[in-house]
């Protein structure tokens, strides 16, 4: 019987090795290990053996069965693996095809600029204030040291609604309102962004509506050097650490001394080129020390308090930073324009 068993093992292992389908392998399993299988058949004949032979043969039979089972399992695993690989290969897709589109909106470029500036100044402790777009003559002009018939009113062509009401020409009235609210008794830092209006014909460099951001710091002992330092921080954060600033004397009725700020030209680094009209500098904003009359009218004692103020146009900043060459583009809202600056 021993020979018989060994022959079965050899035969079974050969068959297993020669099988490459799971179904056939199953048939092999049944043919040897099934109820009517050949190994089972041999084992059934064990009853006829002597007491001495039975354990010996039994042990051999077990070994044979274990060997066949192991071979079957091993082969089965291999075949299953192969079948899975085949299936996955069949499931392959063209990963270079596009994904399902997701709708993506985005902010207007001017909003991005305004928010960037807001974040920059709120980080330095400034609050953000807003005010009405339709203003009184008093807050837009008079409280800012621009009495009626003052020649400097010519600097800004105004959309009047009535003699006393107008579309604000700058966000400066928010400064006057803030100072008045604090009744001359509080030190504060604030910026005020918003829409402003001028009686201009729209062209590449003029818009009857545009945006402005102004800043105001009122305290005891505010120095002009504080303004210079603050604007330097702003310019470097907004335009790059390698940019220099230059202050020039200027005139605004609500500040004295007044300044105009230039930044060094990005293109030529100050050497002079067509972008900066050969000067090496580009005008960015205006500012100055708050005029004592303005402080006084808002209830601050100019002997005790001083302050600085500055104002800039996000359109101009956007034009310089992103090369927008026509101010009307901001208000035309061409989708292709809007989309370009969603990451700005």
């Amino acid at each position: 019987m021993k020979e018989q068993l060994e022959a079965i093992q050899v035969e079974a292992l050969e068959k297993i090795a020669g099988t490459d389908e799971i179904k056939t392998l199953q048939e092999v399993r049944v043919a040897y290990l099934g109820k009517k299988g050949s190994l089972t058949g041999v084992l059934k004949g064990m009853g006829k053996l002597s007491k001495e032979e039975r354990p010996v043969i039994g042990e051999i039979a077990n070994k044979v069965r274990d060997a066949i089972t192991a071979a079957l399992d091993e082969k089965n695993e291999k075949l299953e693996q192969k079948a899975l690989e085949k299936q996955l290969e069949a499931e392959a897709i063209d990963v270079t095809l596009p994904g399902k589109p997701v709708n993506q909106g985005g902010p207007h470029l001017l909003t991005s600029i305004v928010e960037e500036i807001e974040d920059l100044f709120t980080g330095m402790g400034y609050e953000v204030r807003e005010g009405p777009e339709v203003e009184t003559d008093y807050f837009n002009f008079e409280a800012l040291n621009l009495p009626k018939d003052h020649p400097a009113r010519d600097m800004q062509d105004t959309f009047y609604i009535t003699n006393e009401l107008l579309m604000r020409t700058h966000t400066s009235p928010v400064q006057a309102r803030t100072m008045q609210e604090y009744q001359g008794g509080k030190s504060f830092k604030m910026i005020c962004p918003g829409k402003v209006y001028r009686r201009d014909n729209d062209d590449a460099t003029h818009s009857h509506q545009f945006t402005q951001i102004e800043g105001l710091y009122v305290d005891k002992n505010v120095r002009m050097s504080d303004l210079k330092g603050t604007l330097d921080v702003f310019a470097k954060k907004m335009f790059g650490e390698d940019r220099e600033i230059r202050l020039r004397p200027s005139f605004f009725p609500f500040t004295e001394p007044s300044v105009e700020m230039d930044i060094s030209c990005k293109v030529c680094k100050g050497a002079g080129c067509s972008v900066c009209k050969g000067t090496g500098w580009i005008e960015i904003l205006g500012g100055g020390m708050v005029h004592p009359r303005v402080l006084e009218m808002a209830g601050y004692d100019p002997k005790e308090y001083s302050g600085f103020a500055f104002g800039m146009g996000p359109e101009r900043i956007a034009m310089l930073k992103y090369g927008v060459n026509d101010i009307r583009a901001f208000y035309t809202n061409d989708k292709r324009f809007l989309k370009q600056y969603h990451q700005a």
Partner: protein
Amino acid sequence: MLVSYNWLKNYVDLGEITPEQLAEKITKSGIEVDHVTYIAEKSTNVVVGYVASCEKHPDADKLNVCQVDVGEETLQIVCGAPNVAKGQKVAVALPGASLPGDIKIKKVKLRGVESNGMICSLKELGLDPNYIPTDVADGIFVFPEETVVGESVTSLLNLDDAVLEFDLTPNRADALSMLGVAYEVAAILDQPITLPDETLNITSKESAHDVISVEVEAEDLNPYYGAFLIKDVEIKASPLWMRNYLMAAGIRPINNVVDITNYVLLEYGQPLHAFDYDRFASDKIVVRCAVDGEKITTLDDQERTLAAETLVITNGKEATAIAGVMGGANSEVVGETKNVLLEAAYFNGASIRKTVKATGLRSEASTRYEKGIDPNRVRRAGIRACNLLQQYASGTVLADVVEFDALDRSESIVEVNTNRVNERLGTEIDAPTIAAILNRLDFTFDQAGDDFTVHVPTRRGDITIFEDMLEEIARIYGYDHLPYTLPVGVAQSGGLTGRQALKRMVKNYLQGVGLMETMTYSLTNGEDISKLISPEVNEQNPQGVSLAMPMSEDRKYLRLSILPELLHTLTYNQARNQANLAFYEVGNVFISDEETLTKQPTELLRASGAVTGRWVEHPWQQEVKDVDFFVVKGIVEGLFDFLQIPVTFSPAKLADMHPGRTATLEVDGNIVGFIGQLHPTLEKALDLKATYVFDINLDVLIKKYDGEPSFSAIPKYPSIERDIAFILDDTIHAGDVQALIKEVGAPLVKQVKIFDVYQGENVEDGKKSIAYSLLYQHPDKTLKDDEVEASYQEVVESVNQRFNAYVRS
């Protein structure tokens, strides 16, 4: 203000500084120089020639053959200018010369006659035709007799001069004169200044008092009036140097008398006016306000009707000039003028400003009066002009000036303390440095240690207080030398207000769901002003707020809704092949219930959106579908859900909106906006495909928004879901049923969602089936089937009773 570099050299030594370098220094010190331009492009080899003979060209009617002595030789030149004549001294471009416009002069033959050069006009030499005197505009320029033959014309005609264009701020009226500019440049360069010759050698025994008197009726508007009389003038061209400077300053030379008044105007900043004394026809000057409706014909031959507040110069009977603005034609200096009455006056700036506004006339004179002139230069300018009239018009100046004089010529006194300067600037400037700066500015002062008492010259009327002096000191010291410091005072946290933060959140949400932000104009036209106004805004009976003087009818009214402008952006984009659009804007609308505004309108913050075309631009691997009502509703619902503000939608019929596809939004029973499809008629008018819009009152949302989401525990016990489908009348709104289920099912029913609406087979006509999914949950225990069943039955019963609905099996 156009500043001639060569002219300026008469008052200040400019050394080796180029015009460009000077412009840079002036700009950095406070007056922006916009451009530096040159009078003419460089020309070479152009000299003065003497026309020795001039004969007709044998073969050409319009040409002359001239023999021209150019010093070293005599050249034959063929000339086409109509005014060329024997005996003239002219500008000759020699063979080999180059002229502006890249013109090279060669020896040529013109109709068979040799021509060795070219006789030039001022235009050919590169001068701006706008300022060339009219008598030589069409021909060659003729030099005065005394001009030396062979001399280069470059300096004679001031062709190498540079002109600095000043962009003056309103405070620097002092720089509207060459003298003012000279003081400024002298301070910048730390150089002394040379004043013009103001001496006057009177030989006449006759006094001006004998021929003229001055009477001023409006002393506050005209505190000084000086009348000079110059007899027997000879009207001719003014000297070449004067014509050159005038042209450089952008003024066309006319004749010596007019040119001299203009020259002194530019030199001193003091307007002067020359009357023809004989045509003035009176021995009396009366300055008064015009009679309302009074007429005058001005120098430009326009008849003008004057308002009562306009100041006029009269001869006692009729107006002969609008004071400070323009002279009258009836007393104009003309070629035959013999005797000149010269006015040097001080007019009140505000008064002149009113006149300019009323007449629309603005002149070099009025600009200076409006901005303020130097009271100490009025009489001096008159004397200077007399000096020039004596020299260049052969006039005899009568003794004395007839004056009305109530002019305040006092200087402003400003106290300056060194420490205070440093406190304000953040600098460490010492007293000697301040003294040096004051000297450079040519301001007189008394010094006591650190304290200065500054006497501000009247030419600097802009300096009246300490802060004005502070700027003067800082700018001459140099803004470049100020240190960089940061504020050391107030400690304040700063940041956005709740309202500002929420505005950003709303924008971020709308962008996140796929909308692009736009920025449109707040000003709109008469048609759009009444379109697409939200019902709760309309309820307040808003009157269109309009501008008093709009630039155009298109931008006349303040908007009452963002939507009309937003729709125009859709049309604009569609016309440019951008068909799939999803825009929103957050901004103010302006409402007032007053017909004539007496107070500011209320500004309401709104969020509006407009969507058209395909929602997904390139619908790859998904259904190709145009935007519909529910896309936009989903966005709006999402926004309210995001802000945790409950909102309900009710069907509404609104103007310009689709009557069956429009809903109002309500919060706490109040309308806060609307949503829907545009009326197809409006879509057609705007050339738009189906367009869906929303408009939401953000002020209400901001007020309502809690800002602090409250904690509610995540449920520990399992929930049970039950679906239920009702068959009900087609006219019943799904939302009403949903609301009832919520109401009846509370508190166990946590959520009711619609998952299917069906009409068709197995549902009879006029009916529909709506399927709801109900979520049951108890916070403290696991619900039992019978508890759910009881609630479920209650819901079925209620819906059945209220809506006559039955459960679809």
